[in-house]
């Protein structure tokens, strides 16, 4: 074991220890005012029993908007790169198709076709009940994305089908992004303000808004992470 080979790893460990040490040896008490305020007022203000959902879709919805925009830009960049590199030669396409045909046989197709839909249903459950039980849009979206990857592992046989599936996922993502922005602006139309809950003055429960946002965010996150994963699976190395 030479020192020069291990030096980068040791340097990384040292830097991490230096960053984490003040947190471990801190004696000052954590601030509790905000925690107590959320604990006391969340249910009457947003209707959500899960405080985490109430924070990222209610109190800090602006941060969620920024996060959605970041994901959207990442997906746009991936699609751009893929479309530029998709016009490659016929021989390369044939080689790609052959290597992928050899790697996923009928057993993989059978199992992923059976298990994938179950994972998708579980993702929708995590999204829909995110207001009261652990989970929410981002977690449900990650579960949805793993279901999409599962199904794609069995069913993507040629590069053309991969590109088509990516286009479909991109359309889903664009539609859910527009819906998300419309939901955030709907408070202005009703009169409660930007990013505010439009249902808080009606006899409709305010939880409806949180659940709606959870589902939209979940579909958007699932579509974009699934798209990025399929792009990685289908993308060839160009030299």
């Amino acid at each position, binding site marked *: 074991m030479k020192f020069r080979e291990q030096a980068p790893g040791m340097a990384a460990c040292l830097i991490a220890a230096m960053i984490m040490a003040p947190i471990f040896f801190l004696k000052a008490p954590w601030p509790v005012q905000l925690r107590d305020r959320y604990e006391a007022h969340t249910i009457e203000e947003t209707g959500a029993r899960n405080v*985490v959902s109430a924070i990222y879709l209610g109190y800090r919805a602006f941060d969620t908007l920024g996060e959605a925009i970041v994901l959207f830009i990442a997906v746009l960049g991936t699609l751009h790169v893929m479309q530029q590199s998709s016009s490659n030669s016929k021989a390369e396409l044939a080689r790609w198709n052959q290597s992928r045909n050899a790697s996923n046989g009928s057993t993989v197709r059978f199992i992923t076709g059976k298990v994938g839909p179950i994972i998708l249903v579980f993702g929708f459950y995590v999204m829909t009940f995110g207001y009261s039980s652990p989970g929410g849009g981002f*977690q449900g979206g990650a579960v949805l*994305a793993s279901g999409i990857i599962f199904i794609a592992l069995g069913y993507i046989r040629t590069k053309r089908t991969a590109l088509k599936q990516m286009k479909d996922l991109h359309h889903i993502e664009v539609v859910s992004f527009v819906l998300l922005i419309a939901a955030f602006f709907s408070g202005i139309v009703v009169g409660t303000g930007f990013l505010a809950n439009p249902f808080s003055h009606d006899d409709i429960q305010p939880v409806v808004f949180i659940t709606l946002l959870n589902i939209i965010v979940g579909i958007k996150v699932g579509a974009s992470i699934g798209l990025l994963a399929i792009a990685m*699976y289908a993308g060839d190395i160009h*030299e």
Partner: protein
Amino acid sequence: MQAMLSQMMEEITSMAISILLLFIVALSLAAVFIKDLLTCIILMSAASLLGALVFYIANAPDVAITEAAVGAGLSNIAFLWILRATKEAKKR
């Protein structure tokens, strides 16, 4: 009696968290210093899974779900595909 029981539970919980954290540190150090990349990816996955367990014990099930789905699942799929792609590129 009730107070003693709850105090005992608290001590057991904190001890379990400490042991799990020690395991996580050991797995992460092994992932940094082992040469074989496939082993590194699997060690990182195991560390994320133990991290999800720690989050669950510490009453943060939301974070536990995210850690299990993203840290132990999706990121490792990404790493495995990247490893395969670099191997294929090397072969040509």
